[in-house]
Every structure is written in structure tokens, then in C-alpha cells.
């Protein structure tokens, strides 16, 4: 009997909840309705008369790569001084949060941000969702020709431009000169096969336990490394018709190789749970002879406060597989650039554009080039190159390394379902690396998922 009354209680509760919520829906939508016209009015007034009523633009970016927040804040203050009608509110968050914040912010109108940093893998998803403003007509010929074409590719889809290039990064191959010298190795490896041979020598001499470390944990880092390896083997993600081919022989060879290097103790087995930070930590501790990582690892390796290998890190072009080399591939890496895009529903498009142009201008990029290299081509030749190389003690090394590696940056697939596809690929790679599935089966399953997502 009692249990019956409890069922009844629950039923009553649910009914009350539903009824009460029904009332609540109308109650909460009221402020919504009043808020909308209010902003519409402010849009209408703010846009043409920017100089009269200052507007505040909100810009989302990360606090971990590229210029430091203090530098960007400085740029924003300088911009405000030049443009009294515009206030810039920079919002710095962790990289991992940016994508989710954009998705959430765009659920509201006007959106929470007027512009945001966009990673190179997001534009397709965001363009499909209609989040990014088409800025094709705002691009001047000087911008078009002045900025690296590769940077434009990152923000251009179907001939339309959806943002301003901001940061060019690519994964680099670095090695520890000291360890290689002790092992009697004269030159860093040009192929991955050569890397294995060198690693075995290093291992045999007990110089380090695991000669190379990678960021193969279940995040985007593993796809970045896979991209570099895949293209270095003459492989590709998709064929001309957009069908996944990363599970063909070339892809399977790459994944088999990755697994094999772990089994042989050449790659650190912790790679499966390491991100870029862990890779840098083992390289800087002198526990890895080689590392594949982003540019910042180099400057960190020369900082005595964090590094035990000061002066020993060096760049080499990202190796390729022997098969790739035979096919004429000199080097293969992965593009990790980012841009700034304007949110399509921002009420302050013109003001934001003005700021982005200022932020990415050659003068500003040159002035603040200590933390990131400019996107402007003419900074890399003549007097400007000399100036750039003089900016920091590491620039004389990193600038040539950049010029040598960036032409070989490969793109990850530009598809709107990239995040979910990447997750499937991360899963497949990790399943193979942990021995749960064979490389072939794992990649086939991921490819099937890509087909499903595309359909």
C-alpha cells in the first residue's frame, strides 16, 4: 500500500513540476522580449555614431600562446587612444575552453563576444553554423599580398574570407645536440626510419630510456602528430571526393609504425597519456633525445629556470618516411595556426574589424614579435628580417627554423564535422597504440565514422 502512495507522490511531483515550469516559461521570457528591442535600439544608434557613444567590444582569446595578455592589453589601450569611440575588452581563457565558449555564447543574441580567436580546425564548423562574418570585401590588396598565402588559406573557404590571420604555428622536430653527440651521431635524422636507428644507438648506450616523446594523448595533439607522420608517408586524410583514405596502406603503415616504436621502447610509452606539456617536460629534463612540439618549446629549453638542457636544443626539418622521401617529400608537418574572426551577429562589426586590422597590422606584429612571429611576408627579408632576428636571443634560431618548416605544414581536414571526426580518429589511434585493436581495424572504424558524419 505504501509503495502505491509513493508512486502517487512522484506522479504528483512531476505534474507540479510541469505545471509550475509552464508558468515559469512565460515569466522568464518576458525580460527576454524586453531585452531584445533594447539592444536593437543600441545597435541602430551605436553603429553610425560610434564617435558619440563609446561602444565596448568583447574579444575572446587564449592566454597561453602567442602574445602575452599584458602585450595584447597594451595594444588594446593604444588602439583606444587612437579610437576614442571604441573600448576593447579582452577576455583571456584557457585554450580548452574557447570552442565551448563560442558555441555557448552564440546561443545568445547579441553574442557574448564580438570576435574570437579561432583555431585552424574550427572555421568549417563555425561557418556552417553561420557564426563567422564574411569579411572578404574588407580585405585590402595590401593585406592580401602582404600576409603569407598559407595564413589566408586557414580563413578562406569557397573563395570567401572569414577572419584575419593572427598566429602561424607548426609542429617542429627538435633534438638534443648533447645526447646525439654522446651517441656519436653526426646529423639529426632525415627519415623516421633513420630516427629509429639513431634511437636504438642512443638506447643501447643508455643515454636515455625512451629517445622520443610525443603528444599522443586523447586530445587534438595526437591528430596533429598523426598528420605530420601521415603526410610524411605520402598519405592523406581525404581523397578528392572527400572520402576518407587515412585508413589506406599508407595510414596503416604510419599507425603500425607508431605502435611499433612504443613496443620497442623508442617512443616513450607515456606518450599515450602525454600532452604537449608533458613532451616538453621530458625534453627539457634531458630525458628525451628527440621531441615533436610547437615552437615555444625552443625558448623554454633555453630558460635555465625551467630547463636542464640549456643550449642543447636544436631544430631539424620534420623527418619523413623513406617511402615519402622516395616520392620526393622533403618534410611534412602540421599547421597549428589561428586567426581572429568576427561573430556574424555582433552589433559592432565595423569597430571590431578596425581593431582586428590594428591588432594584425605589420607594425604591431613587428613591435610585439618577441612571443610570436609576424604574419607579414616582408618581415622575413632585408632590414626587417635583421630587426626581427634582433628582437630576442632565440629569434636568430627560430626565424630560420620557421622559414624552413612552415612551407611543409599540412592541413587537417577542413570539414564541418571535424571535432567529431577528430574524436573518432583519436579513439582509433589510441586503440591501436594500446593494443585494443589492430591499426587496420581501428582506422577502418574511424573511416566508417567519417563516412557516416559526412553523410
Amino acid at each position: 500500500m505504501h509503495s502505491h502512495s509513493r508512486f502517487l507522490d512522484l506522479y504528483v511531483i512531476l505534474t507540479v513540476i510541469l505545471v509550475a515550469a509552464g508558468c515559469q516559461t512565460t515569466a522568464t521570457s518576458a525580460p527576454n522580449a524586453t531585452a531584445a528591442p533594447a539592444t536593437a535600439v543600441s545597435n541602430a544608434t551605436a553603429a553610425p555614431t560610434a564617435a558619440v557613444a563609446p561602444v565596448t567590444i568583447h574579444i575572446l582569446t587564449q592566454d597561453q600562446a602567442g602574445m602575452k595578455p599584458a602585450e595584447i592589453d597594451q595594444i588594446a589601450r593604444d588602439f583606444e587612444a587612437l579610437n576614442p569611440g571604441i573600448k576593447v575588452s579582452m577576455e583571456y581563457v584557457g585554450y580548452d575552453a574557447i570552442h565551448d565558449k563560442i558555441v555557448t555564447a552564440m546561443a545568445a543574441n547579441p553574442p557574448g563576444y564580438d570576435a574570437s580567436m579561432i583555431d585552424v580546425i574550427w572555421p568549417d564548423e563555425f561557418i556552417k553554423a553561420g557564426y563567422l562574418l564574411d569579411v572578404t570585401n574588407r580585405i585590402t590588396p595590401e593585406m592580401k599580398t602582404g600576409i603569407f598565402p598559407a595564413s589566408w588559406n586557414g580563413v578562406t573557404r569557397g573563395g570567401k574570407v572569414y577572419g584575419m590571420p593572427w598566429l602561424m604555428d607548426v609542429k617542429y622536430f627538435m633534438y638534443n645536440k648533447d645526447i646525439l653527440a654522446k651517441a656519436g651521431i653526426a646529423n639529426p635524422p632525415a627519415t623516421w626510419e633513420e630516427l629509429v636507428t639513431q634511437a636504438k644507438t642512443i638506447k643501447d648506450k643508455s643515454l636515455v630510456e625512451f629517445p622520443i616523446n610525443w603528444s599522443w594523448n586523447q586530445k587534438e595533439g595526437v591528430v596533429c602528430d598523426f598528420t605530420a607522420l601521415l603526410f610524411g608517408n605520402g598519405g592523406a586524410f581525404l581523397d578528392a571526393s572527400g572520402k576518407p583514405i587515412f585508413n589506406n596502406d599508407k595510414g596503416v603503415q604510419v599507425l603500425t609504425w607508431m605502435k611499433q616504436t612504443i613496443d620497442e621502447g623508442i617512443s616513450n610509452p607515456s606518450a599515450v597519456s602525454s600532452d604537449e606539456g608533458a613532451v616538453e617536460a621530458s625534453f627539457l629534463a634531458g630525458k628525451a633525445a628527440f621531441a615533436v612540439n610547437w615552437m615555444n618549446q625552443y625558448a623554454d629549453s633555453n630558460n635555465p629556470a625551467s630547463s636542464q638542457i640549456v643550449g642543447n636544443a636544436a631544430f631539424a626539418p620534420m623527418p619523413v618516411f623513406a617511402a615519402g622521401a622516395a616520392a620526393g617529400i622533403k618534410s611534412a608537418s602540421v599547421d597549428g595556426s589561428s586567426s581572429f574572426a568576427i561573430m556574424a551577429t555582433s552589433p559592432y562589426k565595423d569597430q571590431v574589424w578596425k581593431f582586428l586590422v590594428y591588432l594584425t597590422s605589420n607594425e604591431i606584429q613587428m613591435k610585439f614579435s618577441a612571443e610570436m612571429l609576424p604574419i607579414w611576408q616582408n618581415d622575413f627579408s632585408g632590414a626587417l628580417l635583421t630587426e626581427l632576428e634582433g628582437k630576442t636571443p632565440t629569434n636568430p634560431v627560430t626565424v630560420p627554423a620557421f622559414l624552413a618548416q612552415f612551407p611543409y605544414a599540412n592541413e587537417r581536414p577542413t570539414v564541418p564535422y571535424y571535432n567529431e571526426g577528430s574524436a573518432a580518429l583519436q579513439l582509433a589511434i589510441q586503440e591501436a597504440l594500446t593494443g585494443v585493436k589492430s591499426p587496420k581495424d581501428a582506422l577502418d572504424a574511424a573511416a566508417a565514422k567519417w563516412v557516416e558524419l559526412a553523410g
Partner: protein
Amino acid sequence: MRWRKILPKLLLTLCTLPILFFIFFPVLWLFSTSLSNQVELYAVPPHWIPQHPVLRNYLEIINPALATTAVPRTFAVALWNSFKISSIVTIVCLVIGSMAAYALVRISFGFNQVIRVGVMAVRMVPEVSLIIPLYVIASSLQLINKPIVLIITYMSFALPYAIWLLAAYFQSVPIELEEAARLDGCSRIGILFRIVMPISVPGLVSTAMFVFLLSWDEFFYALIFTSTLAAKTAPVAIAEFIGRYNININGMMAGGVLVAIPPVLLALVFQRYIVSGMTVGAVKG
């Protein structure tokens, strides 16, 4: 004879050692890491006690001018935001929660059970799924990036919890006292504030503790709803030590120690109340 008494006690005491080790090993390692410099951090095998202890990780947080990166520079602000937000949530929950809890357990108005069980039921939906609708509301009210948005959204889990605990506690207050007060002409509100609440101080304190800890702990709402220093909380700042390219482990651990200190201190100071609050919750739940 003496040994027969001492031996079991000794054995029992020995049993406490692995437990104490399990409790203290992680926190002591956390503390040790927070005092290490970057190089010693990566010593193999680890230096359990840093050979060259540094306070830099703390100083960077305490004195932002010293910080070389953004996260420690802004950490103190995040701590202060966390403190403000958690305190306000706690106070509001105690005031309106005790009103509701009292009515639920002492005045039969027909919906007591429904509301009481309903209050518990809303705790079962994962917060991940409420974020987007909450964001839409908050944004239409222009609340994003303001501490108030977290204060309000934290109510979604803190208030039901407070009501549940307080209701359990008020039930344990002898009803005779109230009846006597009513005969003396005290109003319901008067009874609540003059009789029930003063007797229930242990319950109020323990509820306050639980609510404060829940709010202090919250991560996901804070991650999505705030990005400026105006409202960023300490757990979000902790997560930001994990950068895209590298992790500032000792900075993160120093931050972790600082974030853990206020709740640990509060809990230790009010230990008596927490345990009594737990008992009431456990017996009367």
C-alpha cells in the same frame, strides 16, 4: 595484564598508519611540488623534500607584479571572486533556505511532501545539460561575466541541498518549545527567527559549510559563464594552468594549495558542526 590491554590498542593504532599515509601522501606531495622550482620538479626519482625550496610560485600569486605569465598574475583575483561568490550564495541559501525548510517541516500546507521530494529530484540532472538554457537566460538579462550569474546559477544545486539539510535539522528541534512560544503569542516568523534558528546553530553552521564548499568547488558553470577577471573563479584559474602548449605544474600546485586552504581551515574549525550536520542528515534524511 597490562599487555592484554595495550596490545589491541597498539594493533589498532598500527591500523591507522596506512590510512594516515593514504590521506597525507597526496597532499604533502602537492605541497612539496608547490615549493619546487621547475628543474627540481622533474627530478627522477622525485625529491620528496625540495632541496632548493622556492616560494616563487606563491609570491607570483600573492604579488602579481612578480608573475611572468597571466595565470598566476590573475589568480589572487580569482580567489577573491570565489570567496565573494561562495559567501553570498551561502548567506542567501541560509536565509531563504531556512524559511522554506521551516515551512516544509512545521506547517502543513498541502504541498510539503511534494516540494520536499521535488527539491531533491532536481539534483539529479547533470549540470552539463542545463548550461545552454541558463546561458540564454543569463545573457538576455545581461548577466554574463558578472559574479551575479554564478551566484544565481549556483543556487540551482546549493539551495536544494541547503533546504534538504535544514529541513532534516529543524525536524530534530523539539516541537514543545515552539508550542510554548506560540501560547506566549509568538508569530510563526518570530518562532523561526527567535526560537528555531538559535537552537539550530549547529545545523545552520554545518549547512553553511556544505553550501560554501559546494560553491567553492564548482567548476563547469564558472568555466562557461565567465571569462573576465570580474567573475573568474579559482577552480577555473587552476584549470588554466594547463595551457595549450605546456603546463605550469608547480604554479598549479601552489594555486591548488591556496584554493584548498580556505575550505580545509573552515572545515577544521567547524569540524564539530560538520559531523553533527552529517549525523542529522544521515539519521533523518
